[in-house]
């Protein structure tokens, strides 16, 4: 196993777990959405680490495509969550 794989792989696991913990511990909508995005970034990092095959080899493009899909899905979910959170704040201020 490459040192790079181990280093970034562990970083990915850390981001995933940190995000998960953040979602469970926070109660504000915006803070939870942030944590969810961190959590997703961790999973994406793991995918990209899988794709990396050392300096001399072309990386596996499949995980890259999956992560691209994942990034777009994450931003869509973020947009919906933020719209809901804003609506809630509006209702509370009326």
């Amino acid at each position, binding site marked *: 196993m490459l040192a790079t794989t181990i280093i970034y792989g562990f970083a990915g696991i850390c981001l*995933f777990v940190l995000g998960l913990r953040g979602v469970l511990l926070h109660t504000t909508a915006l803070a939870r*959405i942030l944590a969810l995005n961190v959590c*997703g970034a961790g*999973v994406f990092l793991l995918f990209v680490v899988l794709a990396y095959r050392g300096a001399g080899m072309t990386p596996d493009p499949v*995980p890259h495509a999956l992560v691209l899909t*994942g990034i777009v899905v994450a931003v869509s*979910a973020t947009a*919906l*969550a933020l719209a*809901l959170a804003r609506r809630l704040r509006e209702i509370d201020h009326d």
Partner: protein
Amino acid sequence: MTDLLVWPILLPLLASLLALVFPRRGDWIGGMASLAVLISAAWLVHSVWDNGVIAVALGGWQPGLGIALRADGLSSVLLLMVAIVALTIGIYATRYFDNAVVRARFWPLWLLLLAALNALLLSGDVFNLYVTLELVGLTAVALGALGGSRDAIVAALRYLTIGLLGSMAFLAGVVVLYAAYGTLDMVALASVVEDRPATWVALMLMTLGLLVKSALFPMHFWLPPAHANAPAPVSAALSALVVKVAFYLVLRLWLDVFTVALHPATAWMLGLLGAVAVLWGSYRALRAPRLKLLAAYSTVAQLGYLFLFLPLLAGLPDGPAREAAFGAVVLFALTHGFAKSALFLGAGVIQQRAGHDRIEELGGTARALPVTTFVLALSGIALIGLPPSGTFLAKWQLLAAAVETGQWVWIPVVAVGSLLAGAYVFRVLGHAFAPGDRDGSALAAGREELPALALALVATVVLGLAAGGLWGFLDFAAMSPGGAR
């Protein structure tokens, strides 16, 4: 023939686009599309009946490099249920949303949800499943928030957050699978998975994600507010279909893909959670002040029954007994789908007529809305599990399997759960038949009450009588380790 597989996904997807572009034609577009989906689903069931498993490699690329769609007995029969329930709810919705603007918001999302459910049921690729899970989740959340009340928004936001957390866990499992086995195709995975840590961790993460989405106790807390505060047609779909497809994935993964890693101890743990869900959900349903909340808690309980089947399936050797138990779990899921959607639609009629759905104040409903009250009674029969409903047969098989495998512990759970279900159903009926100051025509509105009645009749009568055919059909489902798929 393999083209059959794409229509249940593409038809509602295209209709959803049209419904956005032509907002005033929503009813027409939605109705036609739902009908077309029903026809394509029936056709699909027919060809699975004739030919067994059908698969198509999308883009012509061999599965693994590309993505495959597959239909077997289990997925096609669930697809048919989704199509029937969706068509019926759609008809009801044209009446329920009496405001054209709200209907214009409803149709594109609704059709997209239908496409997403079908895509999930037919998907043969674990990453594609993640995308379909997200699609189901986002559309369900947006539909749940359509009511616009504060409670609905709060519930939708929580549903979204928890659902995303579940998807993330599922996706982390997909990473581990791809790292270990280098493929995302489910059939390819089924043939290479080994009983070792990578598989266990992947299965744990994916199952955790799906348990959150199928609201198994103690991850059920998001469900009652989300289902009780959505508009009635949406609640019906959420309870009958959306949580059901998450359970379908649990079945698929455990019995079909990861058979080698299915240890009795894990199945027991899920069964135990299911047992607690049955008791807790039924108890909370009994104490619920509102009819829709009651229906939502009853969903928690009924999902618990589905998980009770897992330790039994794990304990039974291949053979007729296992097939019977498998048929029973599918029958249970189907019956609940029809009965619960009928109950929610009935609750919606009452809520719109009376302006509330508080159970204590339902007096007079039986006289004012006799058809709807009949719907409540019929769906109640299916929820309790009285003959001739499909649930009765399913519970019978559940008990038989418990005796056969010596897992006696589930028998009192089923007994107490059924008694509690009887109690909450009769509590509602008792109030509905109480005298009250309301009266009305015998039939409030055909487009509202008849769909609910049709669903309730399917749950109580049709599924009970047609169950024999179902068992024969599910033979095509890959039930043996390694699978016939």
